[in-house]
């Protein structure tokens, strides 16, 4: 059964069509990678799925329910978690409090109930040492980790990750891959936008290619990467 | 005794009502210089024309300055919060310069229900009432040949509601005297347009206008009336044209506007403190300040006369009950006439707390060199106050 399904979703900003008639399904438990050039509309697609922006057309179903008109907050409660490409920490709250907000509201539990879960997430993302530091003081990499941690703290069924591997050292990147695989192994469906292809392909089972808001390819990562079209538009520098 | 008697005095020294207290300093200085005044200390507080502030400073005077008696003047916005505070603090208070109805009824819980009205134990007031101003105005109008159709502009404030009150205000009396009143309702102060009223007055063919607006509103009204071709024969207005500056602000449109006159330099009264006549007091003020005399001068002066008189008759100025009884027993010939709480001319419920002072009618006449003079044109209720002319139509 597919956990998420988009049907003919479109979104324009003024004259610019950023999402153009996108339709695809994500089976429950799958890890899907999204690639595409800068400005292709990848982040916008996330915003549409999470409800941070509303689509102009089309329908979005999550777990069989039509969530097209449902608010971002409610979509989170039904199990969609996300990270932002440009980290959006609650700057005046500490790292731990950032997670507390997500865990208590995203799961509708009391602080006491989620305390250990939050600590656990912080251990896994190696932010535990920074738990009591205001998020505004974090470095870029730490902010990205916080994005991932905060999304994990809501214990989503569908986790959307937007470029969280950029700028990591090889070691960090491997650790990140392990963490994500771990989450995936627990049955969480993952959609991951990433430019660092080797990281992406080592996790995802399917790859979606976006260009000018259009889905121009969807399928097995190797096949997608091998297709000429993708080579041309995405890996332009490689050929 | 040694210790001086402490008087608290609240008035609006700043804010929109400040014109009422322009003479305060002059009067208080005079009082303290007088023989009786030497026993007193006067603590003055500014209400900033704000009723909240008036109540606050009244309380400060009572509690922090431990005054023996409170004096307060100038519009219900000042007298009422102060009097209410004093009454509940059980400190004697004498107030003035507010018609007695807004003072008395305005402090009752439910002004609409006369059955619930209660007299005060510590609060006393001397001034005239609406019945007087109605009588003066109608007497002035009766001097002219008119169709007896009157248009009224009464705002939704302490004065306006009292003047327009269907029981104690203008409507029943005018009705009884055969005047036809067009009252369009209580507008808010600082209204910028009076076309509605002007249209209604024109429709009713009003030849007389009355009301108790604040000065800027009357200017707006009067200017618009002229612009829209509404030219009544008489305009008898309370409050707005009390002060010469306000009339001067009308340019040459102020000529022959009429108003109630509670005090003037020609009033045949003298101070019980200094023996000065009304004329002396006014000219003293004019030389001291270089400003034209205004009506509140006499009443503020009388307020301090009252203080001296009352305190002269008590054993212990710190005993509120004794002071209150002394006030109630007052019979004083003051700068504003005789003050006595004997109930003369008053309904039973107000007898205990109110003393009435005389009221006559006057008209503003343009002087040759610019500026206006207030000329008394009607004294039918108080013939002892001389007139300076007769009522003229607004040309």
């Amino acid at each position, binding site marked *: 059964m597919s956990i998420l399904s988009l049907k003919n979703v479109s979104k324009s900003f003024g004259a610019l069509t950023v999402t153009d008639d996108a339709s695809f399904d994500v089976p429950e438990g799958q890890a899907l990678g999204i690639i595409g050039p800068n400005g292709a509309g990848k982040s916008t697609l996330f915003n549409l799925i*999470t*409800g*941070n922006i509303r689509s102009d057309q089309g329908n979005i179903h999550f777990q069989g329910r039509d969530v097209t008109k449902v608010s971002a*907050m409610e979509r*989170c*409660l039904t199990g969609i978690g996300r990270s*932002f490409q440009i980290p*959006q*920490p*609650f700057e*005046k*709250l*500490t790292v*731990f409090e*950032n997670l*507390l*907000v*997500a865990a*208590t*509201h995203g799961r*509708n539990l009391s*602080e006491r109930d989620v*305390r*250990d879960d939050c600590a656990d997430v912080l*251990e896994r993302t190696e932010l*535990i*040492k920074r*738990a009591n530091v205001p998020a505004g003081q974090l470095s870029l990499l730490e902010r990205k980790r916080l994005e991932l941690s905060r*999304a994990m703290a809501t214990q989503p069924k569908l986790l959307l990750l937007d470029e969280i591997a950029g700028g990591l050292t090889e070691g960090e990147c491997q650790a990140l891959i392990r963490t994500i695989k771990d989450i995936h192994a627990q049955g969480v469906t993952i959609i991951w936008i990433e430019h660092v292809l080797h990281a992406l392909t080592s996790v995802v089972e399917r790859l979606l290619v976006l260009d000018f808001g259009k889905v121009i390819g969807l399928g097995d990562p190797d096949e997608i990467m091998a297709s000429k079209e993708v080579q041309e538009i995405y890996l332009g520098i490689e050929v | 005794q040694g210790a001086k008697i402490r008087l608290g005095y609240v008035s609006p020294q*700043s804010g929109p009502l400040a014109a009422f207290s322009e003479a305060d300093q002059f009067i208080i200085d005079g009082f303290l210089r007088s023989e009786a005044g030497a026993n007193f200390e006067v603590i003055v507080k500014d209400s900033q024309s*704000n*009723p*909240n502030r008036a109540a606050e400073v009244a309380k400060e005077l009572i*509690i*922090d300055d431990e005054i023996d008696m409170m004096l307060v003047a100038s519009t*219900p*916005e000042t007298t*009422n*919060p102060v009097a*209410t*505070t004093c*009454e*509940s603090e*059980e400190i004697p208070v004498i107030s003035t310069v507010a018609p007695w109805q807004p003072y008395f009824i*305005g*402090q*009752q*819980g*439910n*002004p*609409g229900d006369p059955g619930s009205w*209660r007299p005060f134990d510590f609060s006393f007031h001397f001034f005239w009432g609406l019945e007087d101003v109605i009588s003066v105005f109608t007497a002035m109008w009766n001097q002219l040949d008119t169709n007896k159709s009157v248009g009224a502009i009464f*705002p*939704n*404030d*302490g004065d*306006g*509601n009292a003047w327009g009150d269907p029981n104690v205000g203008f409507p029943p009396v005018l009705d009884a005297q055969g005047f036809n009143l067009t009252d369009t309702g*209580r507008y*808010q102060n600082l209204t910028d347009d009076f076309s509605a009223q002007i249209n209604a007055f024109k429709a009713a063919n009003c030849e007389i206008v009355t009301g108790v607006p604040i000065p800027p509103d009357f200017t707006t009204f009067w200017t618009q009336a002229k612009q829209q071709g509404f030219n009544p024969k008489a305009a008898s207005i309370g409050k707005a044209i009390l002060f010469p500056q306000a009339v001067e602000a009308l340019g040459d449109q102020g000529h022959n506007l009429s108003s109630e006159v509670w005090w003037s330099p020609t009033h045949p009264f003298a101070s019980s403190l200094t023996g000065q006549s009304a004329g002396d007091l006014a000219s003293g003020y004019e030389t001291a300040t270089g400003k034209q005399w205004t009506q509140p001068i006499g009443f503020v002066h009388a307020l301090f006369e009252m203080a001296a008189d009352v305190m002269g008759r008590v054993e212990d100025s710190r005993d509120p009950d004794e002071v209150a009884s002394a006030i109630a027993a007052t019979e004083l010939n003051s700068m504003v006439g005789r003050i006595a709480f004997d109930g003369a001319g008053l309904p039973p419920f107000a007898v205990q707390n109110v003393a009435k002072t005389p009221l006559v009618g006057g008209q503003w006449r343009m002087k040759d060199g610019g500026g206006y003079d207030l000329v008394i044109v009607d004294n039918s209720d108080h013939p002892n106050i001389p007139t300076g002319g007769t009522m003229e139509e607004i040309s």
Partner: protein
Amino acid sequence: MAYTVTTQTPASRIAAILGALVIVVLVALPFFAGRGTIQDMFFILTMLVLAQFWNLLAGYGGLVSIGQQAFVGMGAYALFGTVILWGLDPVPSILLAGVAALVIAVPTAFFAFRLNGAYFAIGTWVIAEVVRLLVAQWKTLGGGTGTSLPRDATRDMWFVEMIEETLGVRSAAARDILAYWLALILALATIGGIYWLLRTRRGLALAAVRDNTEAAKSVGVDAGRMKWIVFLTSAFGTGLAGGLIYMQKARISPDAAFSVTDWTAYVIFIVVIGGIGTVEGPIIGVLVFFALQSLLADFGSWYLMTLGVLAIVIMLVAPRGLWGLLSERTGLHLFPIRRRLTGGKLTASEE
């Protein structure tokens, strides 16, 4: 090893002990202080309540209202209405004052929440004007003239006789003391309540929404609901304060009860001077405001000029207020809300 969460700091523990002492002194104040002090404290406490609620609204909820006088006035008029028209005792009527404010807050919110920023500010101001003008048409309560509380009602108020007897004071003083104690209860409940709210997950959500609304929504925070909670709570508390203030004044008029300067502008002044977005700020602010008023109020327009200039200077020099300045320098928090994770892997090396 297990993790634990604390919010206390050594400073806050000392502050708590001192705070408890202050509360004891404040409760006992009528037994040894003069009426003047009680009066001043009543003023301070009621302004503090207004300031705390405005701070909750603007400092935590991001809702900059300049129409709080609507709730003060509504509360006050509700109190006068119930006392004069229904013959209820003023003390329980205070609660109804809060309820009345709440009742008009609901349609106000429906309308005002459609607006943002400056529009919201002006919109709330206009609504307060509308309420004032409507109340000014309420003839049974004096219309534009205003009215006074019947003396019988204030004289026989609940607890007054008891206080008269216990403390051996006159009835006017007893009423002041009663009003003071009510104000003290209200102020303590307000500060306690707001502090409690900030320490719940709702408080966390408020902070999150303030930092980044979009991200807050994405982690399941109901930003809209937070706005409602904050707005209605402030309205209720402001209404209670309004009722209490006018119970003590015993005289009301629309212009006074709905004064934008007295009940909103000065309150904003207090909060901003003290430090917006902190529980401590309004406390400092109200003390400064009171000090200024007692020192300068007799200078009439010079006082107001000073106040105006001070508002400008503070905003430019210390935009986060006096408390902001202090806590930036010292890291001091009397009402700490930061949750610190300790134990587990954090035990070994703490910062």
